[in-house]
Protein backbone atom coordinates (compact mmCIF):
# COMPACT_ATOMS: atom_id res chain seq x y z
CA UNK A 1 0.00 0.00 0.00
CA UNK A 2 1.59 3.25 -1.11
CA UNK A 3 -0.85 6.09 -1.62
CA UNK A 4 -0.16 9.59 -2.89
CA UNK A 5 -1.05 12.25 -0.34
CA UNK A 6 -2.30 15.71 -1.23
CA UNK A 7 -3.24 18.84 0.67
CA UNK A 8 -6.83 19.86 0.03
CA UNK A 9 -7.59 22.35 2.78
CA UNK A 10 -5.77 25.01 4.80
CA UNK A 11 -6.56 27.01 7.90
CA UNK A 12 -4.44 29.43 9.89
CA UNK A 13 -4.43 31.75 12.87
CA UNK A 14 -1.14 33.64 12.68
CA UNK A 15 0.23 36.84 14.20
CA UNK A 16 0.24 38.49 10.76
CA UNK A 17 -3.04 37.11 9.47
CA UNK A 18 -6.07 35.20 10.69
CA UNK A 19 -7.66 33.18 7.91
CA UNK A 20 -6.00 32.14 4.66
CA UNK A 21 -6.70 35.28 2.53
CA UNK A 22 -5.22 37.68 5.11
CA UNK A 23 -2.28 35.40 5.84
CA UNK A 24 -1.51 34.95 2.13
CA UNK A 25 -1.50 38.69 1.59
CA UNK A 26 0.69 39.23 4.66
CA UNK A 27 3.37 36.71 3.69
CA UNK A 28 3.47 38.04 0.12
CA UNK A 29 3.90 41.59 1.39
CA UNK A 30 6.35 40.69 4.14
CA UNK A 31 4.05 42.02 6.84
CA UNK A 32 5.31 41.65 10.39
CA UNK A 33 2.90 40.50 13.07
CA UNK A 34 5.25 41.40 15.92
CA UNK A 35 4.08 44.06 18.39
CA UNK A 36 5.19 45.53 21.70
CA UNK A 37 3.80 43.41 24.55
CA UNK A 38 2.96 45.62 27.59
CA UNK A 39 2.33 42.54 29.75
CA UNK A 40 5.91 41.34 29.19
CA UNK A 41 7.14 44.81 30.13
CA UNK A 42 5.04 44.80 33.31
CA UNK A 43 6.46 41.37 34.16
CA UNK A 44 10.06 42.61 33.74
CA UNK A 45 10.87 40.28 30.85
CA UNK A 46 14.02 41.04 28.90
CA UNK A 47 11.96 40.40 25.78
CA UNK A 48 8.97 42.74 25.49
CA UNK A 49 7.72 41.96 22.00
CA UNK A 50 5.59 39.09 20.70
CA UNK A 51 3.37 37.92 17.90
CA UNK A 52 -0.26 37.58 18.95
CA UNK A 53 -2.92 36.78 16.35
CA UNK A 54 -5.72 39.25 15.85
CA UNK A 55 -8.39 36.87 17.09
CA UNK A 56 -12.00 37.74 17.84
CA UNK A 57 -12.96 35.29 20.60
CA UNK A 58 -16.70 35.69 20.02
CA UNK A 59 -16.15 34.61 16.43
CA UNK A 60 -15.86 31.06 17.84
CA UNK A 61 -19.64 31.09 18.32
CA UNK A 62 -19.90 30.33 14.61
CA UNK A 63 -17.61 27.28 15.06
CA UNK A 64 -18.98 25.61 18.19
CA UNK A 65 -22.46 25.59 19.67
CA UNK A 66 -23.38 28.04 22.41
CA UNK A 67 -23.19 25.41 25.16
CA UNK A 68 -19.62 24.52 24.16
CA UNK A 69 -18.74 28.20 23.80
CA UNK A 70 -20.00 28.90 27.32
CA UNK A 71 -17.08 27.88 29.51
CA UNK A 72 -14.51 27.68 26.72
CA UNK A 73 -11.45 29.55 28.00
CA UNK A 74 -8.35 27.92 26.51
CA UNK A 75 -6.87 30.36 24.02
CA UNK A 76 -4.83 27.70 22.25
CA UNK A 77 -7.89 25.51 21.88
CA UNK A 78 -9.76 28.45 20.38
CA UNK A 79 -7.01 28.99 17.80
CA UNK A 80 -6.99 25.28 17.01
CA UNK A 81 -10.75 25.07 16.53
CA UNK A 82 -10.74 27.96 14.08
CA UNK A 83 -7.72 26.80 12.06
CA UNK A 84 -8.89 23.18 11.90
CA UNK A 85 -12.53 23.81 11.01
CA UNK A 86 -11.49 26.45 8.46
CA UNK A 87 -9.19 23.86 6.84
CA UNK A 88 -11.96 21.26 6.82
CA UNK A 89 -14.33 23.74 5.23
CA UNK A 90 -11.68 24.97 2.79
CA UNK A 91 -11.24 21.37 1.61
CA UNK A 92 -14.83 21.48 0.46
CA UNK A 93 -16.10 19.14 3.15
CA UNK A 94 -19.58 19.49 4.46
CA UNK A 95 -19.73 20.92 7.98
CA UNK A 96 -22.60 18.85 9.28
CA UNK A 97 -22.28 19.17 13.04
CA UNK A 98 -25.61 17.52 13.82
CA UNK A 99 -25.13 14.33 11.81
CA UNK A 100 -24.73 11.04 13.68
CA UNK A 101 -22.28 9.76 11.10
CA UNK A 102 -18.81 8.84 12.33
CA UNK A 103 -16.14 9.39 9.66
CA UNK A 104 -14.19 6.16 10.13
CA UNK A 105 -11.77 6.96 7.31
CA UNK A 106 -10.87 10.42 8.64
CA UNK A 107 -8.68 11.21 11.63
CA UNK A 108 -6.75 13.97 13.31
CA UNK A 109 -3.20 14.56 14.52
CA UNK A 110 -3.00 17.90 16.30
CA UNK A 111 -0.15 18.96 18.56
CA UNK A 112 0.69 21.45 21.24
CA UNK A 113 3.42 21.84 23.82
CA UNK A 114 1.62 22.87 27.00
CA UNK A 115 -2.08 23.04 27.67
CA UNK A 116 -3.40 26.46 28.53
CA UNK A 117 -1.67 27.79 31.64
CA UNK A 118 -4.42 30.35 32.25
CA UNK A 119 -6.79 27.41 32.73
CA UNK A 120 -4.20 25.62 34.88
CA UNK A 121 -3.75 28.78 36.96
CA UNK A 122 -7.49 28.90 37.64
CA UNK A 123 -7.41 25.30 38.85
CA UNK A 124 -4.42 25.93 41.10
CA UNK A 125 -6.02 29.04 42.62
CA UNK A 126 -9.34 27.28 43.26
CA UNK A 127 -7.82 24.16 44.72
CA UNK A 128 -5.44 26.11 46.95
CA UNK A 129 -8.38 28.20 48.18
CA UNK A 130 -10.14 24.91 49.10
CA UNK A 131 -12.76 25.53 46.42
CA UNK A 132 -12.05 22.51 44.23
CA UNK A 133 -15.76 21.70 44.13
CA UNK A 134 -16.41 24.97 42.31
CA UNK A 135 -14.23 24.07 39.33
CA UNK A 136 -17.02 22.45 37.37
CA UNK A 137 -16.97 20.08 34.43
CA UNK A 138 -15.25 22.17 31.79
CA UNK A 139 -11.69 22.58 33.02
CA UNK A 140 -10.28 19.08 32.62
CA UNK A 141 -11.11 18.99 28.90
CA UNK A 142 -9.15 22.23 28.54
CA UNK A 143 -6.08 21.25 30.55
CA UNK A 144 -5.72 17.76 29.16
CA UNK A 145 -3.04 17.88 26.51
CA UNK A 146 -5.45 16.35 24.02
CA UNK A 147 -7.96 19.17 24.52
CA UNK A 148 -7.56 20.80 21.10
CA UNK A 149 -7.68 17.46 19.31
CA UNK A 150 -10.75 16.40 21.27
CA UNK A 151 -12.68 19.57 20.45
CA UNK A 152 -11.80 19.30 16.75
CA UNK A 153 -12.50 15.61 16.27
CA UNK A 154 -15.73 15.80 18.24
CA UNK A 155 -17.03 18.70 16.21
CA UNK A 156 -16.41 16.87 12.93
CA UNK A 157 -17.19 13.29 13.98
CA UNK A 158 -13.71 12.02 13.07
CA UNK A 159 -13.46 8.28 13.70
CA UNK A 160 -9.98 7.27 12.55
CA UNK A 161 -6.84 7.85 14.63
CA UNK A 162 -7.22 10.90 16.86
CA UNK A 163 -3.80 11.72 18.29
CA UNK A 164 -2.21 14.61 20.15
CA UNK A 165 1.50 14.81 19.48
CA UNK A 166 4.13 16.85 21.24
CA UNK A 167 7.76 17.32 20.20
CA UNK A 168 8.49 20.90 21.26
CA UNK A 169 9.28 23.08 18.22
CA UNK A 170 9.10 20.07 15.89
CA UNK A 171 5.49 19.36 16.91
CA UNK A 172 3.72 20.94 13.94
CA UNK A 173 5.71 19.33 11.17
CA UNK A 174 5.71 16.04 13.05
CA UNK A 175 1.89 16.14 13.11
CA UNK A 176 1.85 16.68 9.35
CA UNK A 177 4.29 13.81 8.82
CA UNK A 178 2.25 11.45 11.01
CA UNK A 179 -0.96 12.25 9.13
CA UNK A 180 0.87 11.83 5.84
CA UNK A 181 2.15 8.39 6.85
CA UNK A 182 -1.25 7.10 7.94
CA UNK A 183 -2.67 7.95 4.53
CA UNK A 184 0.38 6.81 2.57
CA UNK A 185 0.23 3.39 4.19
CA UNK A 186 -3.51 3.06 3.71
CA UNK A 187 -4.60 3.44 7.33
CA UNK A 188 -6.73 6.53 6.69
CA UNK A 189 -8.18 8.37 3.70
CA UNK A 190 -8.15 11.80 5.21
CA UNK A 191 -6.28 13.37 8.13
CA UNK A 192 -6.80 16.79 9.65
CA UNK A 193 -3.33 17.76 10.90
CA UNK A 194 -1.79 20.77 12.59
CA UNK A 195 -0.79 22.31 15.88
CA UNK A 196 -1.52 25.19 18.18
CA UNK A 197 0.25 27.47 20.66
CA UNK A 198 -0.79 30.37 22.85
CA UNK A 199 1.63 33.18 23.78
CA UNK A 200 1.68 32.58 27.38
CA UNK A 201 3.61 34.64 29.94
CA UNK A 202 4.45 31.59 32.04
CA UNK A 203 6.00 29.57 29.25
CA UNK A 204 7.72 32.49 27.60
CA UNK A 205 8.86 33.80 30.99
CA UNK A 206 10.80 30.57 31.34
CA UNK A 207 12.25 31.00 27.85
CA UNK A 208 13.14 34.59 28.77
CA UNK A 209 15.11 33.23 31.70
CA UNK A 210 17.07 31.00 29.31
CA UNK A 211 18.22 34.21 27.53
CA UNK A 212 17.14 32.83 24.16
CA UNK A 213 14.58 35.57 23.41
CA UNK A 214 15.13 38.82 21.51
CA UNK A 215 15.77 41.73 23.87
CA UNK A 216 17.47 44.49 21.85
CA UNK A 217 14.56 45.47 19.65
CA UNK A 218 11.85 46.14 22.24
CA UNK A 219 11.43 49.67 20.85
CA UNK A 220 11.23 48.36 17.28
CA UNK A 221 8.95 45.33 17.49
CA UNK A 222 8.62 44.72 13.74
CA UNK A 223 12.40 44.48 13.47
CA UNK A 224 12.83 42.15 16.43
CA UNK A 225 12.60 38.81 14.63
CA UNK A 226 15.78 38.64 12.53
CA UNK A 227 16.63 35.09 11.44
CA UNK A 228 20.05 34.76 9.81
CA UNK A 229 21.00 38.38 10.45
CA UNK A 230 24.22 39.51 12.11
CA UNK A 231 22.23 41.49 14.70
CA UNK A 232 19.81 38.73 15.63
CA UNK A 233 19.91 38.07 19.32
CA UNK A 234 17.22 35.57 20.12
CA UNK A 235 13.79 34.54 18.95
CA UNK A 236 10.50 36.40 19.36
CA UNK A 237 7.57 34.65 21.09
CA UNK A 238 4.75 33.90 18.70
CA UNK A 239 1.46 32.06 18.83
CA UNK A 240 -1.36 30.79 16.71
CA UNK A 241 -2.37 27.62 14.93
CA UNK A 242 -1.99 26.05 11.52
CA UNK A 243 -4.06 23.23 10.04
CA UNK A 244 -4.14 21.22 6.84
CA UNK A 245 -6.44 18.57 5.44
CA UNK A 246 -4.34 15.75 3.98
CA UNK A 247 -6.04 13.33 1.70
CA UNK A 248 -5.47 10.18 -0.31
CA UNK A 249 -5.17 11.46 -3.89
CA UNK A 250 -7.78 9.04 -5.30
CA UNK A 251 -10.19 9.92 -2.51
CA UNK A 252 -9.67 13.64 -3.15
CA UNK A 253 -10.14 13.29 -6.92
CA UNK A 254 -13.24 11.14 -6.49
CA UNK A 255 -14.96 13.88 -4.53
CA UNK A 256 -13.69 16.60 -6.88
CA UNK A 257 -11.55 18.34 -4.27
CA UNK A 258 -9.17 21.09 -5.34
CA UNK A 259 -5.54 20.46 -4.46
CA UNK A 260 -3.01 22.91 -3.04
CA UNK A 261 0.07 20.71 -3.16
CA UNK A 262 1.35 17.19 -2.67
CA UNK A 263 3.47 15.78 0.13
CA UNK A 264 6.14 13.53 -1.33
CA UNK A 265 7.66 12.29 1.90
CA UNK A 266 9.54 13.23 5.00
CA UNK A 267 11.54 12.05 7.95
CA UNK A 268 11.49 12.39 11.71
CA UNK A 269 14.34 11.35 13.98
CA UNK A 270 16.17 12.18 17.16
CA UNK A 271 19.85 12.73 17.72
CA UNK A 272 19.57 10.84 20.97
CA UNK A 273 21.14 13.83 22.74
CA UNK A 274 24.52 12.42 21.76
CA UNK A 275 27.49 13.75 19.75
CA UNK A 276 26.85 17.41 20.50
CA UNK A 277 23.11 16.93 20.81
CA UNK A 278 21.51 17.77 24.14
CA UNK A 279 18.13 18.64 25.59
CA UNK A 280 18.36 22.04 23.90
CA UNK A 281 20.86 21.61 21.04
CA UNK A 282 20.70 19.32 18.04
CA UNK A 283 23.10 16.56 17.21
CA UNK A 284 24.11 17.91 13.79
CA UNK A 285 24.75 14.43 12.45
CA UNK A 286 21.15 13.49 13.13
CA UNK A 287 19.86 16.71 11.54
CA UNK A 288 21.80 15.87 8.37
CA UNK A 289 20.51 12.29 8.51
CA UNK A 290 16.95 13.58 8.82
CA UNK A 291 17.33 15.97 5.86
CA UNK A 292 18.86 13.16 3.78
CA UNK A 293 16.19 10.64 4.69
CA UNK A 294 13.48 13.14 3.81
CA UNK A 295 14.62 13.48 0.20
CA UNK A 296 15.24 9.74 0.00
CA UNK A 297 11.76 8.90 1.25
CA UNK A 298 10.29 11.47 -1.11
CA UNK A 299 12.24 9.89 -3.97
CA UNK A 300 13.71 13.17 -5.12
CA UNK A 301 17.29 14.37 -5.40
CA UNK A 302 18.69 17.07 -3.13
CA UNK A 303 19.36 19.24 -6.20
CA UNK A 304 15.64 19.11 -7.12
CA UNK A 305 14.73 21.28 -4.13
CA UNK A 306 13.69 24.79 -5.19
CA UNK A 307 12.79 26.18 -1.78
CA UNK A 308 13.89 25.59 1.78
CA UNK A 309 11.53 26.75 4.48
CA UNK A 310 13.90 26.70 7.41
CA UNK A 311 13.38 26.41 11.12
CA UNK A 312 15.65 29.51 11.40
CA UNK A 313 14.50 31.17 14.60
CA UNK A 314 16.89 34.14 14.90
CA UNK A 315 19.33 32.64 17.38
CA UNK A 316 22.95 31.49 17.26
CA UNK A 317 21.65 28.16 15.96
CA UNK A 318 20.72 29.63 12.54
CA UNK A 319 24.30 29.36 11.31
CA UNK A 320 24.51 25.70 12.27
CA UNK A 321 21.16 24.99 10.67
CA UNK A 322 22.23 26.55 7.38
CA UNK A 323 25.48 24.55 7.50
CA UNK A 324 23.39 21.37 7.91
CA UNK A 325 21.16 22.27 4.97
CA UNK A 326 24.32 23.04 3.01
CA UNK A 327 25.79 19.64 3.81
CA UNK A 328 22.80 17.92 2.21
CA UNK A 329 21.32 20.29 -0.36
CA UNK A 330 24.47 22.11 -1.40
CA UNK A 331 26.47 19.04 -2.39
CA UNK A 332 25.97 18.55 -6.11
CA UNK A 333 24.63 21.93 -6.81
CA UNK A 334 26.24 25.26 -7.57
CA UNK A 335 23.07 27.08 -6.80
CA UNK A 336 21.71 26.72 -3.29
CA UNK A 337 17.89 26.56 -3.05
CA UNK A 338 16.02 29.74 -2.18
CA UNK A 339 15.72 29.83 1.59
CA UNK A 340 13.25 31.68 3.77
CA UNK A 341 12.11 31.89 7.36
CA UNK A 342 8.50 32.73 8.10
CA UNK A 343 9.62 33.49 11.66
CA UNK A 344 11.02 36.81 10.40
CA UNK A 345 7.37 37.92 10.18
CA UNK A 346 5.58 36.02 12.94
CA UNK A 347 8.25 35.06 15.47
CA UNK A 348 8.58 31.56 16.81
CA UNK A 349 5.23 29.98 17.55
CA UNK A 350 6.86 26.93 19.25
CA UNK A 351 4.53 23.97 18.65
CA UNK A 352 2.47 25.92 16.14
CA UNK A 353 5.54 27.02 14.15
CA UNK A 354 5.72 23.89 12.01
CA UNK A 355 2.08 23.80 11.01
CA UNK A 356 1.83 27.53 10.23
CA UNK A 357 5.03 27.25 8.19
CA UNK A 358 3.65 24.20 6.34
CA UNK A 359 0.56 26.25 5.46
CA UNK A 360 2.89 28.96 4.11
CA UNK A 361 4.78 26.36 2.04
CA UNK A 362 1.54 24.99 0.56
CA UNK A 363 0.47 28.53 -0.36
CA UNK A 364 3.84 29.27 -1.98
CA UNK A 365 3.63 26.11 -4.09
CA UNK A 366 0.02 26.72 -5.07
CA UNK A 367 0.40 30.40 -5.91
CA UNK A 368 4.01 30.04 -7.16
CA UNK A 369 5.89 32.60 -5.13
CA UNK A 370 8.63 32.74 -2.51
CA UNK A 371 7.87 34.90 0.50
CA UNK A 372 10.57 37.34 1.62
CA UNK A 373 12.87 37.15 4.60
CA UNK A 374 12.22 40.43 6.36
CA UNK A 375 14.75 42.13 8.64
CA UNK A 376 17.66 40.72 6.69
CA UNK A 377 19.44 44.03 6.02
CA UNK A 378 22.55 42.75 7.77
CA UNK A 379 22.90 39.07 6.95
CA UNK A 380 25.20 37.01 9.09
CA UNK A 381 28.41 37.08 7.00
CA UNK A 382 29.11 33.39 7.53
CA UNK A 383 25.65 32.44 6.31
CA UNK A 384 25.90 34.78 3.31
CA UNK A 385 29.30 33.31 2.51
CA UNK A 386 28.01 29.75 2.76
CA UNK A 387 24.93 29.91 0.53
CA UNK A 388 25.17 33.30 -1.21
CA UNK A 389 22.74 36.20 -0.92
CA UNK A 390 20.96 35.08 -4.09
CA UNK A 391 19.50 32.26 -2.02
CA UNK A 392 18.03 34.67 0.53
CA UNK A 393 15.18 36.68 -0.97
CA UNK A 394 14.31 39.89 0.85
CA UNK A 395 11.46 40.68 -1.54
CA UNK A 396 8.59 38.43 -2.57
CA UNK A 397 9.63 36.50 -5.70
CA UNK A 398 7.15 35.39 -8.33
CA UNK A 399 8.91 32.27 -9.41
CA UNK A 400 8.31 28.74 -10.56
CA UNK A 401 8.89 26.42 -7.63
CA UNK A 402 8.21 22.72 -7.85
CA UNK A 403 9.66 21.15 -4.74
CA UNK A 404 10.05 22.58 -1.26
CA UNK A 405 11.65 21.24 1.90
CA UNK A 406 10.37 22.25 5.33
CA UNK A 407 12.15 21.38 8.55
CA UNK A 408 11.74 22.02 12.25
CA UNK A 409 14.00 21.12 15.15
CA UNK A 410 12.84 20.83 18.73
CA UNK A 411 14.10 20.57 22.30
CA UNK A 412 14.71 16.96 23.16
CA UNK A 413 16.86 16.74 20.01
CA UNK A 414 13.91 16.01 17.69
CA UNK A 415 14.13 16.72 13.94
CA UNK A 416 11.45 16.68 11.28
CA UNK A 417 11.75 17.38 7.56
CA UNK A 418 8.95 17.29 4.99
CA UNK A 419 9.18 17.41 1.20
CA UNK A 420 6.29 19.13 -0.58
CA UNK A 421 5.68 19.47 -4.29
CA UNK A 422 3.49 21.49 -6.58
CA UNK A 423 0.66 19.13 -7.54
CA UNK A 424 0.95 17.47 -10.92
CA UNK A 425 -1.31 14.47 -11.58
CA UNK A 426 1.39 12.85 -13.70
CA UNK A 427 3.86 13.09 -10.82
Amino acid at each position, binding site marked *: MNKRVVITGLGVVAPNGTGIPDFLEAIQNGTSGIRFNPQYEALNFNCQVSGVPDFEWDHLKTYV*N*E*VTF*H*GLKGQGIGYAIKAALDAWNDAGNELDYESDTVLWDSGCVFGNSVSDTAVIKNIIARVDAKEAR*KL*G*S*RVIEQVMNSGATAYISGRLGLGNKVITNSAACATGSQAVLMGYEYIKFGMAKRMLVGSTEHVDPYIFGAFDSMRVLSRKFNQFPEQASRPMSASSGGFVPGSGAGAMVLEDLDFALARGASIYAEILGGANNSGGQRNGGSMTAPNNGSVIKCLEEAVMNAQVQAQDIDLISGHLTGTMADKMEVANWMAVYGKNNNKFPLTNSLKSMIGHCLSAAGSIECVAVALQLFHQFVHPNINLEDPNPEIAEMIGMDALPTECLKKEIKIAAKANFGFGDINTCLIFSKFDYNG
Partner: protein
Amino acid sequence: MDKLTILDELKKVLAPYTTNKEALGSINDQTDLIKDLKINSANIIDIIIDAETKYGIEIDPDSAEKMSNVGSCIDVIMEKMNQKE
Protein backbone atom coordinates in the same frame (compact mmCIF):
# COMPACT_ATOMS: atom_id res chain seq x y z
CA MET B 1 -38.56 33.39 47.25
CA ASP B 2 -41.62 31.60 45.89
CA LYS B 3 -41.66 28.65 43.56
CA LEU B 4 -42.51 30.66 40.45
CA THR B 5 -39.65 33.10 41.02
CA ILE B 6 -37.26 30.20 41.50
CA LEU B 7 -38.53 28.59 38.28
CA ASP B 8 -37.94 31.82 36.43
CA GLU B 9 -34.45 32.17 37.84
CA LEU B 10 -33.71 28.51 37.16
CA LYS B 11 -34.42 29.07 33.46
CA LYS B 12 -31.61 31.60 33.40
CA VAL B 13 -29.27 29.17 35.14
CA LEU B 14 -30.12 26.41 32.64
CA ALA B 15 -29.97 28.61 29.52
CA PRO B 16 -26.20 28.40 28.81
CA TYR B 17 -26.33 24.61 28.96
CA THR B 18 -29.06 23.83 26.45
CA THR B 19 -29.38 24.60 22.77
CA ASN B 20 -33.05 23.63 22.96
CA LYS B 21 -34.46 27.09 23.74
CA GLU B 22 -37.98 26.09 22.79
CA ALA B 23 -38.10 23.34 25.39
CA LEU B 24 -36.54 25.70 27.92
CA GLY B 25 -39.30 28.23 27.33
CA SER B 26 -42.00 25.75 28.29
CA ILE B 27 -40.42 23.86 31.20
CA ASN B 28 -42.50 22.46 34.03
CA ASP B 29 -41.83 20.29 37.07
CA GLN B 30 -41.63 17.14 34.94
CA THR B 31 -39.08 18.50 32.43
CA ASP B 32 -36.04 16.21 32.57
CA LEU B 33 -32.73 18.06 32.29
CA ILE B 34 -30.98 15.37 30.25
CA LYS B 35 -33.83 13.81 28.26
CA ASP B 36 -35.93 16.89 27.50
CA LEU B 37 -33.44 19.73 27.55
CA LYS B 38 -30.65 17.55 26.06
CA ILE B 39 -28.20 18.81 28.64
CA ASN B 40 -24.88 16.96 28.68
CA SER B 41 -24.78 14.92 31.90
CA ALA B 42 -21.36 16.39 32.77
CA ASN B 43 -22.88 19.88 32.69
CA ILE B 44 -25.32 19.06 35.51
CA ILE B 45 -22.48 19.75 37.91
CA ASP B 46 -21.95 23.19 36.34
CA ILE B 47 -25.65 23.95 36.75
CA ILE B 48 -25.44 23.01 40.42
CA ILE B 49 -22.38 25.23 40.92
CA ASP B 50 -24.12 28.12 39.14
CA ALA B 51 -27.27 27.60 41.24
CA GLU B 52 -25.21 27.65 44.44
CA THR B 53 -23.76 31.01 43.45
CA LYS B 54 -27.07 32.41 42.30
CA TYR B 55 -29.06 31.47 45.42
CA GLY B 56 -26.21 31.74 47.90
CA ILE B 57 -26.63 28.16 49.02
CA GLU B 58 -24.58 24.99 49.25
CA ILE B 59 -25.87 21.83 47.65
CA ASP B 60 -24.36 18.70 49.17
CA PRO B 61 -23.60 15.72 46.89
CA ASP B 62 -26.61 13.68 48.11
CA SER B 63 -29.02 16.51 47.33
CA ALA B 64 -27.30 17.12 44.00
CA GLU B 65 -28.02 13.55 42.96
CA LYS B 66 -31.74 14.22 43.27
CA MET B 67 -31.67 17.09 40.77
CA SER B 68 -32.73 15.34 37.59
CA ASN B 69 -35.83 17.26 36.58
CA VAL B 70 -37.00 20.84 37.04
CA GLY B 71 -39.30 19.93 39.94
CA SER B 72 -36.56 18.21 41.92
CA CYS B 73 -34.18 21.10 41.23
CA ILE B 74 -36.67 23.58 42.66
CA ASP B 75 -37.34 21.33 45.68
CA VAL B 76 -33.64 21.08 46.51
CA ILE B 77 -33.06 24.81 46.00
CA MET B 78 -36.06 25.74 48.19
CA GLU B 79 -34.98 23.28 50.87
CA LYS B 80 -31.46 24.71 50.98
CA MET B 81 -32.75 28.30 51.00
CA ASN B 82 -35.07 27.51 53.89
CA GLN B 83 -32.21 25.90 55.81
CA LYS B 84 -30.25 29.10 55.32
CA GLU B 85 -33.02 31.21 56.77
